[in-house]
């Protein structure tokens, strides 16, 4: 069995060796040993198989046992060697790996070194670049500074340029202003130039007219000269005949004159009564009409006054209503005030009573305050006195205690002294007894001086002691007296203290009562003061309202009234406006009738045409730029000046524009006053619808049917308010020609027909509307 086991172990060891040999490839010594073992074992195994049968059991067992042990040892050796080989193999592997690692490390190191070198190079490059950049930065900063400096310089120059620009702008603005001023002046001058040009034109046209007139006059004069010569030629032949004819004619004329005179006288005589009657009638009518006019005026004034009164009455009513409301409020207040007496229970019926009550309350309050003050002062004084007394009492108490102590000490002293005295007296008695005994025993004269001396000394001592004791007794008695007096004072002070404490009690109660009254009075006073402040505020508000009303223009109608001149520009402007409106309406109606007739195709009635053309003339007159007023003294132009076509200012025109409306209205009234005589000469029919200045017609009642008379019948020498309307100055020659022509026509045609106005209008072809 053991051989089998040995064989098994040997096989196992062989397997292990094979394994180890397979593992170890190159280790030759080990391999060689292993191979030898292998061989041995194989041999042994072969030999063992063959030897089993032949050998003895015990010897072979020991041999086998030893062999097995050897085998085991060898196996162990082999195992150890294989282990070693494994280890060495591992070591080799490790070394290889180590080498590889080293190699890789070296490679990595080299690569890292290279990379490090590269990075170092890069760093250097970057550093160089950085240096370059820094240099560039420095350069750039230097450039920046230079540029900043340049900027500053530029800004300075810019500021300078700005200042100069502003100065130039200011100068330009001033120049612009001067230019505007100059432009304004230029415009004014242009206007004046225009005016003057117009004047020139007018003057030239006048000059032309005058020249034409001159030519006419020349021709007339020449004709007259010729006629004169012919007459002179024939006069000589007729002289004689004329003389005779003259004589006869003179007689005839004388007779005719006488006849005429007689006839006139007869007719006048016949006419006289009629004329007188007519005169009377006319005077009566005149007076009646004047009265009627006055009454009209009065009635109108009354109406206006009544209307104003109405307005005032309405205002008064409103005021009344307000006042009634206020009155109700005040009555309510009054009643509340009157109820006061019921509420407060005092007999108050009038505000005077209330005021008296308040005054009384105030007086009472004052008195109570005074009393209060006096009581307070007295209380303070009493307190002070009490405190003083308390302090004194304390002081006295302390003094008392001290005195008591002193007394006790004194009493103790006295007792001690008395005891001493007793003792001394006893001693004295004893001494005296001793002395007496001595005296009785001894003889005198030897010891007597000494004895006497001693006796005297002893007596002196005794006297001193007596004196001392008497002093002490006196002091004692004094102390006792003081004690008694202090006790009396203390008793007195205690009594006074009690008295004061009893007195202060009732005084406080009286002060409290007055304080209640005072508080009630104060409340009342506050209420009254509140009401007073309210009333003051109301008063201030009313005053402010009053001021505002006075600024608006309100006034106290009971104290002031507002007056103005009856003849004032506003009223006259309004009347002028009304007249213009009426005239325009009439023209409108005329034009409508004319239109109607024209549309119907019928013949235009002369009257309408005549009536319309002056209106067209008027329109031309309105649109012309005023009338020349130079020749006021000229009789011709005085006629012409009667054409007072005061054109109304165009409504809607801006008041500030330099207007040139019809300026005729700004002429003085003299030509107007001169009108009646001129007009009665026959211009009335020429201008039946002439526009007249408002002043001439304003306050005159127009006689019915005679529109023409309105020019002449102005009764009041009224200032021309027409000029007070917004109208310009007279500056145009155009109308002057119109006037002169009309005047001429008026002079030449003493009884012009209605057809002349168109004629006169047509003689002025240069006059177009709109000039």
């Amino acid at each position, binding site marked *: 069995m053991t051989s089998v086991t040995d064989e098994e172990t040997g096989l196992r060891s062989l397997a292990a060796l094979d394994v180890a040999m397979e593992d170890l490839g190159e280790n030759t010594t080990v391999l060689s040993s292993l191979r030898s073992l292998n061989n041995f074992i194989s041999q042994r195994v072969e030999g063992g198989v063959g030897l089993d049968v032949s050998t003895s059991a015990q010897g072979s067992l020991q041999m086998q046992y030893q062999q097995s042990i050897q085998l085991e040892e060898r196996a162990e050796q082999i195992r150890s060697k294989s282990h070693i080989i494994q280890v060495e193999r591992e070591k080799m592997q490790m070394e290889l790996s180590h080498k590889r690692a080293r190699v890789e490390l070296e490679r990595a190191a080299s690569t890292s070194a290279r990379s490090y070198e590269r990075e170092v190079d890069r760093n250097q490059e970057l550093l160089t670049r950085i240096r370059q950049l820094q240099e560039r930065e420095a350069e750039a900063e230097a450039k920046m500074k230079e540029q900043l400096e340049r900027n500053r310089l530029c800004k300075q120059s810019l500021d300078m340029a700005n200042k100069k620009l502003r100065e130039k702008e200011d100068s330009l603005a001033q120049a612009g202003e001067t230019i505007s001023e100059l432009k304004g002046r230029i415009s004014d001058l242009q206007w004046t130039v225009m005016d003057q040009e117009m004047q020139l034109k007018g003057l030239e046209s006048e000059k032309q007219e005058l020249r034409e007139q001159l030519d006419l006059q020349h021709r007339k004069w020449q004709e007259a000269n010729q006629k004169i010569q012919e007459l002179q030629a024939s006069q000589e032949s007729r002289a004689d005949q004329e003389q005779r004819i003259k004589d006869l004619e003179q007689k005839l004329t004388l007779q005719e004159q006488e006849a005429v005179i007689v006839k006139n006288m007869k007719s006048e005589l016949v006419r006289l009564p009629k004329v007188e009657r007519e005169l009377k009638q006319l005077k009566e009518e005149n007076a009646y009409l004047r009265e009627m006019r006055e009454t009209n005026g009065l009635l109108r004034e009354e109406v206006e006054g009544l209307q104003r009164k109405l307005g005032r009455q309405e205002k008064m009513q409103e005021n009344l209503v307000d006042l009634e409301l206020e009155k109700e409020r005040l009555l309510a207040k009054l009643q509340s005030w009157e109820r006061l007496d019921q509420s407060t229970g005092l007999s108050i019926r009038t505000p005077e009573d209330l005021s008296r009550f308040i005054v009384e309350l105030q007086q009472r309050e004052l008195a109570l305050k005074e009393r209060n003050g006096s009581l307070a002062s007295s209380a303070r004084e009493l307190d002070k006195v009490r405190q003083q007394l308390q302090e004194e009492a304390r002081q006295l108490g302390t003094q008392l205690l001290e005195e008591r102590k002193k007394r006790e000490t004194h009493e103790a002293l006295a007792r001690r002294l008395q005891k001493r005295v007793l003792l001394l007296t006893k001693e004295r008695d004893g001494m005296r007894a001793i002395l007496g005994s001595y005296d009785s025993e001894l003889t005198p004269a030897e010891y007597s001086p000494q004895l006497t001396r001693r006796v005297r000394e002893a007596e002196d001592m005794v006297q001193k002691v007596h004196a001392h004791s008497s002093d002490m007794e006196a002091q004692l008695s004094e102390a006792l007296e003081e004690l008694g007096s202090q006790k009396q004072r203390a008793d007195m002070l205690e009594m006074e203290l009690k008295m004061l404490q009893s007195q202060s009690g009732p005084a406080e109660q009286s002060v409290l009562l007055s304080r209640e009254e005072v508080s009630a009075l104060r409340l009342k006073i506050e209420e009254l003061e509140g009401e007073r402040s309210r009333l003051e505020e109301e008063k201030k508000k009313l005053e402010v309202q009053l001021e505002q009303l006075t600024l608006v*223009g309100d006034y106290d109608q009971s104290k002031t009234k507002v*007056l103005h001149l009856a003849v004032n*520009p506003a009223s006259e402007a309004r009347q002028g406006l009304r007249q213009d409106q009426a005239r325009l309406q009439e023209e409108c109606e005329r034009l409508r009738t004319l239109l109607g007739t024209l549309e119907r195709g019928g013949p235009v009635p002369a009257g309408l045409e005549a009536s319309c053309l002056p209106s067209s003339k008027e329109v031309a007159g309105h649109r012309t730029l005023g009338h020349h007023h130079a020749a006021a003294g000229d009789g011709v132009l005085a006629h012409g000046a009667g054409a007072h076509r005061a054109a109304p200012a165009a409504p809607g025109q*801006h*008041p500030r524009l330099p207007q040139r409306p019809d300026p005729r209205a700004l002429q003085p009234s003299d030509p107007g006053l001169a009108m009646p005589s001129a007009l009665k000469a026959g211009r009335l029919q020429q201008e039946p619808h002439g526009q007249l200045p408002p002043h001439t017609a304003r306050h005159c009642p127009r006689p019915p049917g005679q529109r023409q008379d309105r020019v002449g019948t102005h009764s009041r020498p009224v200032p021309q308010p027409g000029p*007070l309307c917004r109208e310009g*100055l007279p500056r145009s020659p155009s109308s002057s020609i119109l006037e002169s022509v009309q005047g001429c026509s008026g002079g030449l045609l003493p009884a012009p027909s209605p057809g002349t106005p168109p004629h006169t209008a047509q003689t002025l072809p240069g006059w177009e509307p709109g000039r």
Partner: protein
Amino acid sequence: VSQQGKNFHGITLRGSAEIMAEFFSSGISSILYQRGVYPSEAFTRVQKYGLTVLVNSHPELTKYLNNVVEQLKDWSYQRSVQKLVVVISNIESGEVLERWQFDIECDRTKALHDEICSVTRQITATVTFLPLLEVSCSCDLLMYADQDLVVPEKWEELGSQFITNSEQVCLRSFATTIHKVNSMVACKIPVKD
């Protein structure tokens, strides 16, 4: 017009009645010129109070003003006139557009031409904020006098010619020896369409 009824307290014209009358004639002329009630050709320039003041050159208007001013002198001697008001009203509608109100107080102080100059300047300056008078207007002068004053022939009484919805601006005042004049102007608040 931005100013809405600021109520300053004007001064009063204390002066002799003549200086006051002179002021009124020149002041009213300047008002009429500035507000364009009459065209500028109706005014001439005159040096007064150290200013170039416009005085109307039209005879009728001067006559009217002289009448009013003479009456004002008389009444101010009697100390029975309280205010002089220049009312500018629309001719057609009769609506009152502007009121220039001069309060007259009779006191005793000294005369100053500078004050008159300043008031005239202020009248000129107020034109800048007063609204334009776009319709044809005319003027009228009212006197606020004592109730018990005897009314002469040509004068008549009427209401106070308020402006409905007005705003007032008080101007400076000036004073002469006896009289003091407060000036203020009231104009109609323009209706915004």
